[in-house]
């Protein structure tokens, strides 16, 4: 069993300072992004901000799915890495507050359907008005954010509470309780991420629709969370945290899952493209039409190569996933590719004259990621680094790949 030195975040550890610093620096960078943005109605800022915010929210949501699925499957191998996923998902209440700029910029982001004048002259939008109206949109956003914040805090809270329990029978029963609660939560997660993807990204182009959109967003979210889990544990161990509890075997599995979900993302991305390409209906093809010209076609190509072909061959060999620096390289690469994916989903609506990576893009991305990271570190500092009393902790520590 792990020793106390391996499971605690030392009070004098240098990373503890990193938490509050990252949080403040992040907030300042986001403010700076708003300051340096000189575009009309701050359009550049709001779109960049949406990209950055969706990036960190999908990281947290992917971690939430990871945690829920490990509970639902009563998984043994993942117990030692689960607390980190819980610390990631418990950033959601703070990230929910960072939705406020999107709410304030809603008329800039979603003016294609929020502008009454446009709707008045558009029969399709009038037909969609029962769903696509400002009041309902706001209500749904509040609902998603409250649900996510609640689920993130609740499941981390249960896990931390278990750390203090002593009676083995009660601990076992407590785990059963967490499992029972995870099933319905997965359903809630699936519905909320699907509709949030529709509300915040798909409606940027309100005529367009794709039934694969929710899964597409989920695939990227889960993939990025797995890549982050792999990378952050490597960095934590470099910094002397978690000792040797997490070993090659756990990294191998995280690498396998990251690999699997880059392929899953590709499968979904291609399926969405393929059906729209085949049917060739104007309403559906418009989305790709916007992305096949004005230099966005290069971003699509970059995703094909960088989000699939390169990681497919790079992450395939067993050895790559069991050596720290090669796995770290693969994970970091995928985290960058996830940003490219977010740009590709959101930005062509705004930057329809071509790819435009400006200061606002970098400042909002680094800023929001810094906020996410700061809250993540603060969460990590408030409890043990692994679920101490989980009945399957021993199994996880001794886990070996076949």
């Amino acid at each position, binding site marked *: 069993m792990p020793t106390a030195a391996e499971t605690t975040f030392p009070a004098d550890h240098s990373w503890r300072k990193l938490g509050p610093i990252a949080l403040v620096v992040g907030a300042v960078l986001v403010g700076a992004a708003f300051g340096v943005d000189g575009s009309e109605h701050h359009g550049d800022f709001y779109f960049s901000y949406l990209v950055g915010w969706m990036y960190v929210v999908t990281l947290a949501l992917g971690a939430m799915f990871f945690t829920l699925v490990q509970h639902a499957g009563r998984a043994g191998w993942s117990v030692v890495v689960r607390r980190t996923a819980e610390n990631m998902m418990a950033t959601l209440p703070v990230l929910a507050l960072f939705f406020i700029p999107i709410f304030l910029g809603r008329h800039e982001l979603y003016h294609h359907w929020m502008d009454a004048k446009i709707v008045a002259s558009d029969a399709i939008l009038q037909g969609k008005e029962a769903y696509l109206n400002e009041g309902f949109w706001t209500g749904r956003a509040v609902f998603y954010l409250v649900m996510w914040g609640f689920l993130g805090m609740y499941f981390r809270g249960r896990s931390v509470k278990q750390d203090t329990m002593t009676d083995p029978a009660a601990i076992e029963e407590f785990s059963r309780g967490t499992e029972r609660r995870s099933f319905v939560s997965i359903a809630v997660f699936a519905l909320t991420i699907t509709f949030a993807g529709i509300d915040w990204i798909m409606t940027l182009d309100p005529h367009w629709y794709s039934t694969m959109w929710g899964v597409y967003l989920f695939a990227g979210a889960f993939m990025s969370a797995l890549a982050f889990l792999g990378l952050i544990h490597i960095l934590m161990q470099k910094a002397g945290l978690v000792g040797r509890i997490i070993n090659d075997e756990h990294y191998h599995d995280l690498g396998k899952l990251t690999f699997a979900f880059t392929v899953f993302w590709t499968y979904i991305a291609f399926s969405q493209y393929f059906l729209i390409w085949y049917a060739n209906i104007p309403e559906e093809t418009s989305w790709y039409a916007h992305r096949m010209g004005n230099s966005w076609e290069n971003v699509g190509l970059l995703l094909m190569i960088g989000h699939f072909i390169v990681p497919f061959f790079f992450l395939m060999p067993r050895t790559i996933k069991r050596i720290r620096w090669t796995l770290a390289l693969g994970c970091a690469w995928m985290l960058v590719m996830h940003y490219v994916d977010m740009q590709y989903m959101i930005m062509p609506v705004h930057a329809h004259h071509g790819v435009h990576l400006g200061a606002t893009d970098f400042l909002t991305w680094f800023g929001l990621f810094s906020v996410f990271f700061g809250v993540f570190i603060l969460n990590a500092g408030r409890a043990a680094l692994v679920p101490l009393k989980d009945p399957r902790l021993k199994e996880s520590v001794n886990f070996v790949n*076949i």
Partner: protein
Amino acid sequence: MSSATITTAKPFGALAEFGNPAELYHACEKVRDEGFSVWDAHTPFPVHGLEDAMGAPRSKVPWISLVFALFGGTIPAFALQSWVAVEGSRQVISGKPMLSWQAFIPVTFEVSVLLGAVGALLGMLMINRLPQLYHSLFRSERFERFSDDKFFISIESRDPKFDAEGTVAFLQSLGSSHVELVED
């Protein structure tokens, strides 16, 4: 007629029986460290980590599978579809360009998966030298329990380090409950 009465000049190998996985595991480590190369372990169920205790190299099956998938699946499937569309058939289908690569992806993918699986199966059979209608170890009656409740190590006489008396004594020293020489 009992097999023990027959003596041959050169046996197939030595067979040692063990009562449980732990004994077998540690015996394998010692056989590995002794430097034997043509030997095997036989268990009724997979024993975790036994390939490490045996010092077995990584399987080559994934590479065979990859070669089958790429050169039997991906490339020929894509090439055939492209040839049929552009040269063989030359029909405009739903107004798309002749070389509509998008339409070829699902078939290319499926054929790659199929050939990858076929490669894995054939590679596994080839490396295990299967199917094999006869194996000398089945001359031993005790060996039948390898698929029931006993654990075995067999060291073949082809091994350069094999010598009948010495190897039997070595296997006995590992704590085997029964060691025998099996005829070829």
